[in-house]
């Protein structure tokens, strides 16, 4: 738990959390809020979640990683609330003895997060408008 946060995400601190003397390979994925979207410039994204389920689903995803890559250590944070353009919305870090496992575990977590974790985003446009954004390409 504690994966959903409203403050800025510190990627270095997350990397330090999974680092260990036996793990030489560390991979990270960091998602940031993009400015250019289909409906015009975006000032921010408002993230909301079904928080209890999101936390439980992230727990399940991280348990799967431990089963599939027993030597990997992974964690993640997803920000909720209003996240200004350019700031970090999600970060996944993975440490493993070798880089293949680190990349694979990191990739698994971000792909599964986007597929399964109940989080939604509403674009706050520069024009003043708002729009639910429901694709997963980001």
């Amino acid at each position, binding site marked *: 738990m504690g994966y959903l946060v409203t403050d800025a995400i510190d990627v270095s601190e997350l990397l330090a959390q999974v680092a260990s003397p036996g793990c030489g390979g560390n991979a990270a994925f960091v998602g940031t809020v993009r400015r250019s979207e289909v409906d015009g410039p975006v000032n921010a994204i408002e993230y909301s979640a079904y928080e209890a*389920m999101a936390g439980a689903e992230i727990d399940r995803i991280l348990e799967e990683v431990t089963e599939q890559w027993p030597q990997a250590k992974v964690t993640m944070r997803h920000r909720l609330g209003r996240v200004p353009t350019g700031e970090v919305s999600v970060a996944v870090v993975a440490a493993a003895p070798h880089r293949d496992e680190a990349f694979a575990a990191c990739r698994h977590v971000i792909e599964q997060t986007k597929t399964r974790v109940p989080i939604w*985003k509403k674009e706050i446009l520069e024009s003043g408008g708002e729009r*639910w954004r*429901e694709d997963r390409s980001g």
Partner: protein
Amino acid sequence: MPEFTDESSTVQPPVSVRVRFYARYAELVGLEQTTLNVPRPATVGRAIALVREQVSNGGSLPVRPLVAVNEEHALPDRELAEGDLVALLPPLAGG
């Protein structure tokens, strides 16, 4: 006369579940939570059909939305139990 208790013919009460709406769906129906009595066999699919009929503007929801039961993803044929929490989830967009 003896009482017959053949299961298939016994009239059981409907299953009462809580239904929650999230994000855009909550905006569509102007509602975050409601309760629903689902006739047996009470499945997720049957619950969704009832929501679309009974909830104001429910017809604007998709016929097969993403659904979670008790904080886990669930398919339309999933059977519901008394008190289950059924969540209707718009397409996910985390990350």
